[in-house]
């Protein structure tokens, strides 16, 4: 109400502010990119761009799953540990061929998601607790199966997923890009996507309307597990070795940040896929900016925290009004 009062005929401030509110993450990204163009040496180069895109790929992959979970008014804290699980299992079965290795790694991710999803959908455990248990236990399992060590990956097909460059585009970027398109299609163009948003908006209303609430929740966590496994595979392939102790460590925080900064409210009922991708790019660009300019990296964390608060504060107005 106040906002309408402040608008004038020449420049409709409320339109501008609401436009910025909806696309704050894009604006912030552009501002930071321009800042980098001026300050950072060699920023406008193919090498810089491809480094940014490669490092952001695993974050984008897990963020997509987290975005879906948050859309249902849930959350998935276990994505980092699921990455570690996939990373641990990948080299164990590569002896049977790359297809088996990849299939097993993805299957492990789907299974972890199935456990999360079952606890959430059928037992009624809160998503934060169910996936917290998987966060704690999953990485332990990964380390047990890997025997506490990192195993080399030599299979050329798997390595290509992390290091290949078809047509000059890094393979992880292609994998992440494809995943973005698939999840965007799922969220925007299928009944499944509508169910996700409906459950997040009002679970009982959704249930009473005859939506398959439990099946949808189960599917959301399985998809999140699959995407996390894919991220684990890509990260392992990039390293050329499994590393269950470090792969995906604390990535759930980056993912939640990306989703929230991208405009998906934690209260559910809305999923912003492209916003999430931009959110991931933004937080990666922040840390790259600090590294490229030899600034202490820890301050990047402080800046990220400030950006989260500002982004959520700015978006809040829209959600409430």
């Amino acid at each position, binding site marked *: 109400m106040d906002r309408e009062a402040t608008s004038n005929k020449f420049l409709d401030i409320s339109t501008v502010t609401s436009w910025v509110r909806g696309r704050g993450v894009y604006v912030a990204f552009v501002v930071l990119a321009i800042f980098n163009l001026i300050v950072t040496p060699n920023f406008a180069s193919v090498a810089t761009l491809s480094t940014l895109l490669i490092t952001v790929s695993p974050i984008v992959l897990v963020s997509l799953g987290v975005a879906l979970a948050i859309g249902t008014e849930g959350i998935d804290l276990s994505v980092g540990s699921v990455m570690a699980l996939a990373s641990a299992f990948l080299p164990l079965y590569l002896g049977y061929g790359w297809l088996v290795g990849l299939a097993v790694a993805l299957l492990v991710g789907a299974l972890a998601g199935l456990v999360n999803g079952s606890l959430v959908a059928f037992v*009624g455990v809160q998503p934060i607790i169910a996936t917290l248990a998987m966060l*704690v236990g999953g990485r332990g399992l990964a380390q047990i199966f890997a025997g506490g060590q990192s195993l080399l990956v030599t299979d050329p097909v798997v390595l290509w997923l992390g290091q290949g460059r078809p047509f000059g585009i890094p393979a992880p970027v292609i994998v992440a890009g494809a995943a973005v398109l698939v999840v965007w299609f799922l969220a925007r163009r299928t009944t499944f996507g509508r169910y996700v948003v409906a459950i997040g908006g009002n679970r009982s209303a959704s249930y009473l309307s005859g939506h398959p609430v439990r099946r949808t929740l189960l599917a959301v966590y399985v998809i999140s597990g699959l995407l996390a496994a894919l991220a684990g595979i890509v990260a392992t392939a990039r390293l050329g070795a499994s590393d269950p102790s470090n792969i995906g460590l604390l990535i759930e925080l980056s993912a939640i*940040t990306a989703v929230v900064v991208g405009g998906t409210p934690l*209260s559910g009922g809305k999923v912003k896929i492209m916003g999430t991708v931009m959110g991931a790019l933004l937080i990666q660009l922040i840390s790259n900016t600090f590294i490229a300019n030899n600034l202490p990296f*820890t301050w990047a964390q402080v800046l990220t*925290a400030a950006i989260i608060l500002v982004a959520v504060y700015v978006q809040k107005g829209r959600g409430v009004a």
Partner: protein
Amino acid sequence: MSTRPADTESAVRSTAWRERLFTTLQRRGAIAVLILVVAVSALVFDNFLTEQNLENIVLQGAFLGLIVVGMTFVIISGGIDLSVGSMVGLGGILAALTVQFSWPLALILPPLACGLLGLGNGLLIAKANMAPFIVTLAGLLGIRGLALAFANEKPIGIDGGSPFDWFGQGQILGISVPVIVVVFAFAVGGLVLARTSYGRIIFAIGGSEESARLMGLPVDRTKVIAYTTSGALAGLAGALLAARLSAGDPNAGLVWELDAISAVVVGGTLLTGGVGTMSGSLAGVLLLSILQNLINQVGTLGSYAQQVVSGFFLIVVVVVQAYLTRKERS
């Protein structure tokens, strides 16, 4: 004819009895499990009940316990505080940086600074109406960044000899000082939660914030105080831990927020707010630290298995709670 009402009456009484059992199990279950675990461990492991081992268990849980007291208030009010682990790191660094100037300052500054950060969390949550999860997640990232930046990303040693050491390593009547502090914190926390109007308001807010507001209760102030307390206790835990280890480690308290949430939930406090006890949280902390101790005793299990067991334990407890709560409702 005449037996029928008696039948129904006894049926009603038996369901009421069963309901009460379920409710008691759900709310006091952690204490029952704790007693069971201690009894079994004492029978299976010869050196479980030794003075040394019991002290190890209690000391292990002491620093986490301080955080859990604050977290219990926050969770019962329907919120969450993810920033406490980072505050432990910052508290330790502040203590290590200031102890060379004055040891009382090293003890006072960490809880004060972290209390102020908690106040910031509380104001953003209560006044700006932002989600606790997000605000304190930003706190988790930003405060850890501050701790690392202040410490140049390296642990800072504390020279021995100052009275500050006593607060981590000293003993009163054979009991370690941090243990005494945490017992005191649990006692005060328990009393405030169960016996004061502040505690009642916390429960009212957790049950239904809207109703609490309509009843004219000071919702905002109560929430701000809860987050401030949580921050101050985390800072104190960081200072005591630094005194114990003779060093401030910027990475201290990493993922402790998750351990604290686990302990609170294991203790029978519902994450949805409105239900919980301080004694349950205490039992939760002790259970987690006994679990760790048992895994160390078995010895053949590595630290990896420890994580798996902790995760599994959390799930079992929560599933049982979900089952009991459902019974209670139906």
